[in-house]
């Protein structure tokens, strides 16, 4: 059980690190929001599932699942609201110069 939880947490940590690299490297708001959504949807999921495995069967697992469901409901809403505000404020998406 401990081994499974360590594997899950390390996989989640990998995706979190990739998302942080993406937030620093990518060129504009729209593509950075993709990196943040990568954090939310897979990194947080794997981390919290790993912690739930470590906890074993108890009522704490139910609470962790509740937090996970909350994250999955709220994060698309936040990302959509931010991107829509950026688009309506007049930002243009970055595009690669075709040469």
């Amino acid at each position, binding site marked *: 059980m401990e081994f499974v939880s*360590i594997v899950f947490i390390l996989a989640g940590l990998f995706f979190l690190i990739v998302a942080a690299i993406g937030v620093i490297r990518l060129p504009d708001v729209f593509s*950075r929001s993709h990196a943040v959504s990568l954090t*939310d949807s897979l990194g947080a999921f794997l981390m919290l599932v790993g912690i739930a495995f470590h906890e074993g069967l108890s009522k704490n697992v139910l609470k962790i699942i509740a937090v996970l469901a909350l994250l999955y409901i*709220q994060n698309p*809403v936040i990302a959509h*609201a*931010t991107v829509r505000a950026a688009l309506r404020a007049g*930002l243009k998406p970055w595009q690669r110069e075709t040469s």
Partner: protein
Amino acid sequence: MTTFFLFVLVVLVILIGAYLYRVLQGPTIFDRVLGLNGISTKAIIVLVLMGTVFERVDMFVDIATGYALLNLMGALAVAKYLEQKGLP
């Protein structure tokens, strides 16, 4: 196992530093909002991990839930405000 969790906590705090760079540096204000959103997701994970370290997961998960709801309201309010105001 506690050592492993402490190691993961340290890595997560370093990642929060990466997002903080984006919050301080970001060219537009939407970059800053996005960075704050990423920091809050990390903070939720950090809270639950600290709960496992202190062996009080039930209490810390409640704090994480409250933090997530506050973050939702704050991000929606800021996005709504900036949408009407336009680029500063």
